[in-house]
């Protein structure tokens, strides 16, 4: 099946694809497949970039994933929306960090630390 271009996809399709990537990343981490995780990371960023380009910056649509039943999906959604909804995104990062659910809790902790010390500036 021909892979569709991101700019041909509706917002809800991008959100679905984004969630799918997060779930695959979660499994990749569980299986220790970091190369796969990193390839999926690039796909994730491509969707974020596409949504950012659209009128009004459609990354807000990813907030629907804040309650998704997969920690990596939630972590990705929180990070991706830091620039557009900083308070809500930060609250989710704090929840993930407080959950102690590895490895996403550790990643959320590092993200919060680098937000607070100014070395990470979401765009």
């Amino acid at each position: 099946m021909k892979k569709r271009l991101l700019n041909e996809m509706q917002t809800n399709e991008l959100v679905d694809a984004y969630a799918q990537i997060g779930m695959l990343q979660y499994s990749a981490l569980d299986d220790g497949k970091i190369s796969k995780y990193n390839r999926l990371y690039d796909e994730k960023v491509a969707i974020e970039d596409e949504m950012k380009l659209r009128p009004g910056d459609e990354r807000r649509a990813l907030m629907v994933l804040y309650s998704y039943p997969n920690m990596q999906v939630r972590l990705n959604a929180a990070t991706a929306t830091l620039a557009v909804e900083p308070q809500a995104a930060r609250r989710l990062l704090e929840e993930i960090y407080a959950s102690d659910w590895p490895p996403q809790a550790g990643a959320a902790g590092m993200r919060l630390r680098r937000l607070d010390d100014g070395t990470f500036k979401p765009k």
Partner: protein
Amino acid sequence: MQSDVRPVCQAGSKITRIPREMIEGPENLVRISRLKRWEITAWYQSKNAEYDGLSPRGFLKDKSWAERQRVGLEALIDHGVLKP
């Protein structure tokens, strides 16, 4: 089961000319569970928005000892190995 890890890893130490004795010294050694070691190693290798899309390992390759130590210790704290 316990495992020894080094908050400042060898990667890129030749680029930054960090002496081997510092990398392999006792001050750069922490004993942790194998599971935690796996978790932190995976974090170091995974691409990350905070590091401009690079893995922390890739980002730190040409950074100073101080920067590498800081990130290493923060990783141990945020992954629940060391207390803040």
